[in-house]
């Protein structure tokens, strides 16, 4: 039995039915994720991967069961405390979501500025993080002057600049070619090695097979597989 404090993310029989829909998007899902783990969330389109990630971010609430993130029961978390929760979670999406009118540096700095971090810290940490993701020297570029892979690196830098406890990635390689994807996965692995827990939803079998990390497979909102050092195509694939 695991001790609660080392579980950074813990789903206890979590169900989620969106209003106006009959079928649950998640159905009695239980997952424990420990600090420092790297976990792939796989499954067909519509199996509930993004829904699980949205629950971790408290973008939506479960309709049954409990979601614990960083030791907090999210169904009981007061609305005004949600920003504090999200400061502990970095997020990366398939579509990068960069601000097109800001430079690379400004995009990364934005994440620190809007949570009120002092200017001196921003000045110091942003270049460090850009170097970590392999973008040193490109800080003054605009997002549309970068390749897709580079744009995703900016997004990862923005997610990681605040050194979050958890990094959540929803199909981060979905818009990238296989070679570029490998680079992004290496970067996520490096971030994981700093102690950051990574939870990544993906369709990308190549990426999953190459990494050999824990794989949780969802099918119609249920967990059908949870194995360490798994591959994309498991029993139900």
């Amino acid at each position: 039995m695991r001790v609660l404090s080392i579980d950074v993310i813990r789903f206890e029989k979590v169900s989620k039915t969106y209003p106006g829909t009959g079928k649950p998007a998640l159905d009695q899902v239980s997952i424990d994720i420990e600090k420092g783990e790297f976990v792939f969330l796989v499954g067909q389109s519509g199996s509930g991967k993004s829904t699980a990630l949205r629950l971790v971010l408290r973008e939506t609430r479960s309709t049954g069961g409990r979601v614990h993130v960083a030791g907090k029961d999210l169904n009981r978390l007061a609305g005004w405390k949600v920003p504090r929760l999200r400061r502990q979670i970095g997020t990366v999406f398939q579509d990068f979501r960069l601000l097109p009118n800001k430079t690379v540096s400004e995009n990364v700095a934005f994440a620190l500025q809007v949570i009120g971090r002092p200017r001196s810290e921003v000045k110091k940490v942003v270049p460090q993080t850009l170097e970590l993701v392999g973008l040193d020297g490109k800080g003054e570029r605009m997002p549309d002057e970068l390749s897709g892979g580079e744009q995703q690196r900016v997004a990862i830098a923005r997610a990681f600049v605040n050194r979050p406890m958890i990094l959540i990635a929803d199909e981060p390689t979905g818009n990238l070619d296989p070679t570029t994807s490998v680079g992004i996965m290496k970067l996520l692995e490096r971030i994981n090695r700093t102690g950051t827990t990574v939870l990544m939803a993906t369709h990308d079998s190549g990426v999953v097979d190459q990494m050999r990390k824990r794989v949780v497979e969802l099918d119609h909102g249920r967990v059908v597989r949870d194995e360490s050092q798994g591959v994309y195509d498991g029993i139900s694939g």
Partner: protein
Amino acid sequence: MRVGYVFSELGQGLRRNVSMHIAVVLTLFVSLTLLGLGVLIKQQSDIAVRYLGDQLQVTVYLCRDGDSNPACTSAVTDEQRQRVEQTISQNPEVSSVRYESQEEAFAKVKELYGADQFDGPNPPMTATDMPQSYWITLKDPQQFEGVTSAVVGLDGVSQVRDLRDTLAPLYGWLDALKYGAWGVALFLVIAALLLVANTIRLAAFARRKEIAIMRLVGASTLYIALPFLLESLVTAVVGVALAGGTLGAFMWFGVHERIASSVSFMPWIGVSDYTTSLLVIGVLGPVLTLLPTLLLTRKYLKV
């Protein structure tokens, strides 16, 4: 919280939506001016009630020969007159009462039109054409209904003229102006609220990417809403300033320089009444813009 960021966002927001902000400022300006004008009119009519109330009395005219009131069959008898006087002086609303004879009334008329008009063999009017009357001073100028109704049905009473008859037209005008100003202001206030709501919607849409990222990285709701609130506050302050200036100009050029100096028999609204109207619009202006902003930012920017 970083002040620099907030102000640069504020400047950007104001510039990005400049036409909407101007529309909000103008509707606020006109509606607040009308609201303030209503307040000033109300103050003036309060002053008028207080002032004219002190001056005016209830007058009871007694029947005379050939009275135009058909209820008067003949000139009032001494007995009837005593009855009327008794009724008046026993009434609790009455402070004092003064009797005016036909001769005294005639003397007033002569003074008004010039005594020489009534000299000669065939004067247009003599003392017998004038009614005898009682002039009643009230304890409270607003309380005249009791004494009026007590006297009006008595034998020998031709006519009772009370405060209402004298003041009704003036109050009617002031009330009409006041409610007219407030009525129009109400419509404009509704327009201002809708404009503010639309402005927020547009601004939230223009900044939707930034807002989505701010929410994602854990910016507080207040931090996200602050530029919107400040934008609303700026438009409110400009609207209030314009309205306050216009009301000030009205007070100075309209009331102080014109009416008050030419019609000096009664007191007019002054600085303290202007301050009251400023206070009202100074509170209402920000409320009108901040309230919809708060409600809508809660809706659009919900974390």
